[in-house]
């Protein structure tokens, strides 16, 4: 299996406080990798390292290497904008821009200078179809995205991300603000999307990780306690702390 990210000795500091300690892992292509752990364990912090969204936080410092396609994404040679076009992200709360559905999806390509109306139409259509939103909204593409339901908004955000044809989609607790029906739609979508994309998902919901992921990493207090195939983690965890967490002793 091909490696997508090779993470080596990542330490992350918010000012004086260390939020990630010596994180090492490999993330494979066309797999769903889930990060689980109690809140504040660093899983969201880590996922934001993968497309360098942490750069936006003042006083945040990252040490170590994350190799993607043979290049450390933290090396000065790496272009951040270029990285982010290849590694897309979906956030905890749906964050559609206050513009039309069409403009939301066309936003990324337009930022890259794509002006061809035909191509844009095609991208918007295929993206919406991929997230199974097309049938619901095809007759009101010009309306504001704010009018959509929470679940639709989140799928729109995924479509917006897909429109950039990224290699990786990072999802930071994408269903935490959604109802169960919308959640299951997004989960189905993840399984569907992994054919074309590498998916990394942070979730606070262990069942969700078990349902959709191929690999699971368990985070605790800024460290990766254990990372393995999802089946293995949930049936035969090798670390006591993982077992305690999975069986619900703490959380």
């Amino acid at each position, binding site marked *: 299996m091909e490696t997508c990210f090779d993470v080596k000795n990542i330490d992350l500091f918010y000012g004086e406080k260390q939020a990630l300690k010596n994180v090492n892992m490999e993330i494979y292509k066309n797999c769903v990798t889930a990060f689980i752990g109690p809140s504040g364990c660093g899983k969201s912090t880590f996922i934001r390292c993968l*497309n360098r*969204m942490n750069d*936006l936080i*003042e006083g945040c410092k990252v040490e170590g290497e994350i190799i993607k396609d043979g290049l450390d994404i933290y090396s000065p040679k790496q272009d951040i*904008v*270029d990285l*982010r*076009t290849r590694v*897309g*992200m979906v*956030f905890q*709360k749906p*964050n*559609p*821009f*206050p*513009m039309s559905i069409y403009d939301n999806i066309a*936003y*990324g390509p337009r*930022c*890259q200078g794509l002006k061809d109306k035909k191509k844009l139409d095609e991208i918007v259509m295929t993206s919406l179809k991929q997230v199974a939103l097309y049938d619901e909204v095809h007759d009101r593409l010009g309306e504001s995205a704010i009018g959509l339901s929470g679940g639709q908004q989140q799928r729109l*955000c995924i479509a*917006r*991300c897909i429109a*950039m044809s990224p290699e990786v989609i*990072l999802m930071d607790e994408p269903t935490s603000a959604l109802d169960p029906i919308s959640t299951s739609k997004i989960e189905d979508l993840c399984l569907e999307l992994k054919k074309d994309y590498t998916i990394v998902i942070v979730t606070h919901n262990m069942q969700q990780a078990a349902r959709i992921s191929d690999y699971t990493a368990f985070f605790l207090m800024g460290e990766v306690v254990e990372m393995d195939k999802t089946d293995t983690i949930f049936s035969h965890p090798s670390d006591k702390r993982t077992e305690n967490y999975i069986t619900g002793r703490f959380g």
Partner: protein
Amino acid sequence: MNRLVKDNILKGITYVASALSVIVLAAILWYLVSNGLSLISGDLITGDYYATTENAAISPDYSYTEMETQEYSGKGYYSKKWGIALEDITTAHNDEEISVVYVDPNSPFTHMNSLVAGEDGMELSLSSGSAVQNIYYEDQNGETVFLSRVQMKDAENTIKTLEEAEGIVSINYESIGGGIRGSIFATLYLILISLLISLPIGIASAIYLHEYATKNKINSLIRQGIDTLTGVPSIVYGLMGVTVLFPVTQLVGATSTSILLGGLTLAIMLLPTIIRSTEEALIVVPKSLRDGSLSLGATKSQTIFKVVLPCAVNGILTGVLLGIGRVIGESAALVYTTSTVISDNPSILSQGTSLSLMIWSIMSGEQPNYELASAISLIILVIVFAINIIVKIIGKRLAKSFV
């Protein structure tokens, strides 16, 4: 003393204090309305401030037989023969005048040529509002007779005299001054110039302060500098304008203080207002939208122009409106920069007064004109209050927009 009584007395005091402010506001409005309202009319808004005297002869092309004047039943005394109605009025300067209230389109007074040197032959037409000074007419014997202002006595007598005349030779009349058209234009120029300069600088500064500036000494110094601008009295801005900005206006051909100079000065004065309201709007834009845009590979400036600024447009609009309000109300900063000379035909590089400055100009002269000042004040207040209400509505919408 009973606690309840004491409480009620204390409460009562706050009611009284609040009532005082209502009384003051009411008194201001009452004073302005009672003094100025009667003066507000279309003529006030479109008229010249300076009265001009015209001397005009009936055009030789005009034929009395071909032109038929209509009946007229409005106010004043009407002469169907000459198609003109006159009325006695008292001007804002307390002068008794005979004023034209109606001129028929076919009247000889609409077909005249100027007799004033330098404007020879210029076509003129008597318009209502003008004050008649004297008239040369032809009597039954075909002789030209001079009818002076004193001989006219009043409107009724004038019309009676003219009805007996055989023809009109020429007329000397004065347009009624006291209009504010020039000042309205000057105000508009000031608004335009100051916003044109202040908006880009202000918005860009706000973007830097809120989107880029990290916490360090230089940035807190920048912020302090802008905050201090707020406390500078407007008259000091005026002093700065003549020393610092006057040379700038000279570059584009200004020879004296000018509306351009006033506009530039006000632009700087507006900066803190524009920066603050833009920043307040930027604060409300959720961080998640910026993250969303950046995660799609947009650059920071793309994110700002395409996502953040469109969301902040209401706040910027608030800044614009508040800025307009301040420009309309400003006087002290302009005294030094645009001069207090009222102009009827202001241009960017000429001197002139805004509406507020016009008030200052007519109030600080030898004979303050309270009526005109009140009328202009009333106009200013209506605009400023309207702006305030709109800003409040926008503010409410802004508070709701991202919940």
